[in-house]
């Protein structure tokens, strides 16, 4: 009786201690993530300039679908997403397979070199890429020296090439990051599977698509979801490489939200509506990726 009572007391005491360990973190995340999310939802039904907002129902959501700038930013963001993410993931997979070879020398050097871009700040590398891809920039100079082009490419002032420059920049920054995940996953793969495949006469290409990719599926899913979320939030690069131009040809949804809130006449309500568009896109793309990965499983 005595021990049962003290046992219960101890458990209750432990529960209190346990909660107190997690309390500060839980309160801060609710305060700075979930509470603003609810605020944004409320604001998305309001309109007005600056802090004076009045309730207007679904007006902002109707405006969203008629807003050419918004539709352009969605188009741009989706283009970045469907072109850049697959290129980067395949490239990272390919490099990690090459690096996973046991008899390869200078492995440490290659790994560090390819991973190095990840330590730069997004702003710093964006400014460097802006200079690299300038009209008189070093990229044009070098391409002309090797006679690949006869006149400079308008990297930052042509709507098409500006998108290409952004995609090259993001790929440069994040391929090594993804590669590290694949490399660590590959190190856990049993060597004998490849040995057996070799004996059965599978080529390197077959091994890559029939063994490596299926084996790394969970980690590929993880990296494609984080890359998707990252691309949908793209801001620093576009802001610092092209400022969204020429016209709105490279502007992303995040940059549009920033402009709506702090650059144009501030319209917090409509900015909040646009921000919910990103939330919805993240949910949709994540579900698609889970579905695609799940189907292959069967």
């Amino acid at each position: 009786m005595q021990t049962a009572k003290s046992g219960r007391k101890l458990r209750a005491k432990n529960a209190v201690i346990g909660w107190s360990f997690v309390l500060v973190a839980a309160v801060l995340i609710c305060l700075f993530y979930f509470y603003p999310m609810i605020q944004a939802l409320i604001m998305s039904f309001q309109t007005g300039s600056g802090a004076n907002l009045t309730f207007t129902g679904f007006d902002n959501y109707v405006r969203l679908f008629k807003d050419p700038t918004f539709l352009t930013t969605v188009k741009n963001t989706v283009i970045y997403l469907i072109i850049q993410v697959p290129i980067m993931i395949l490239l990272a997979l390919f490099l990690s397979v090459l690096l996973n070879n046991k008899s390869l020398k200078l492995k440490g050097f290659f790994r560090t070199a390819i991973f190095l871009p990840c330590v730069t700040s997004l702003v710093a590398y964006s400014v460097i890429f802006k200079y690299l891809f300038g009209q008189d920039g070093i990229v044009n100079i070098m391409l002309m020296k090797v006679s690949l082009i006869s006149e400079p490419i308008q990297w930052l002032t042509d709507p098409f090439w500006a998108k290409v420059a952004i995609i090259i920049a993001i790929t440069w920054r994040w391929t090594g990051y993804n590669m590290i995940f694949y490399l660590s996953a590959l190190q856990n793969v049993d060597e004998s599977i490849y040995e057996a495949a070799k004996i059965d006469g599978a080529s390197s290409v077959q091994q890559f698509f029939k063994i490596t990719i299926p084996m790394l599926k969970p980690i590929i899913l993880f990296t494609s979801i984080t890359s998707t979320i990252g691309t949908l939030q793209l801001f620093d690069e576009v802001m610092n490489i092209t400022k969204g131009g020429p016209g709105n040809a490279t502007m992303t949804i995040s940059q549009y939200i920033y402009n709506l809130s702090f650059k144009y006449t501030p319209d917090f309500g409509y900015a909040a509506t646009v921000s919910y568009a990103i939330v919805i896109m993240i949910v949709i793309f994540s579900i698609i990726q889970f579905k695609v990965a799940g189907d292959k499983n069967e």
Partner: protein
Amino acid sequence: MSNLKRIFSYTVLIIASIVSIFPFLWMIVSSTNKSVEVTKGKLLPGSHFIENLHNLLDTVDLVPALMNSAKISITTTILGMLIASLAGYGFEIFKSKSKDFLFNFLLLSMMIPFAALMVPLFRMFGNISQNMPMIGIDTMSAVILPTVTTAFLIFFFRQSTKMFPKEILEAGRIDGLSELGIFLRIYVPTMKTTYAAAAIITFMASWNSYLWPLVILQSPENQTIPLLISNLGSSYSPDFGMNMTAIVIATLPVALIFFIMQKHFVAGMMGSVK
């Protein structure tokens, strides 16, 4: 490995390495050259680094910006470590159904894009400004507070705590240590590598953060290094040599940390997906 395959592997890896390193090399080389030489495509180091540095210090408030970034990053890292490791430890050691539910709920915050939080957070700090200007708009606290606790970091510490030998905790309890005492005197010293990995990731993220400081900081004397670099990049007729010097100086602290603690950094990143 056949010879052909070997040649192919090395060629691809060497090209990938050159492409990865080239922008760094170009940045460093350009910081030692005059602006005109940079535009002419000079790829060899020059002798103008000191001159560029002088110009830089005369043109912008580099040292104050470095100090602001250092203050923000160090505070964020220390507070972040403390709060997240307490929570990660709490979620793993004192498990219960309701706490597991809370944990999963907190993880949802990783899916929330910052763009969706930016405007409400800005208004929130605007309201705070009226009563407590000390932590309102245009203050270091306003930069730090929203980013100091991330679900990722809590998740990271909880994952690492799974590996922690629980018998040591029991021994601590028998010796009459309080739960907080066990945490501070046994857990913290034992988990040094986890703290190191988490600290590097947090410091780098904080040092490099751009959008939220851009929104919340207004006066020039409060600007951080990324804001300064961004302003340099947007100038109409840039002094390339000088700007590259600024970027080199801004990148140096994180690059150094990366090289010294490379193992921990990579371990930390991979710990995030275990």
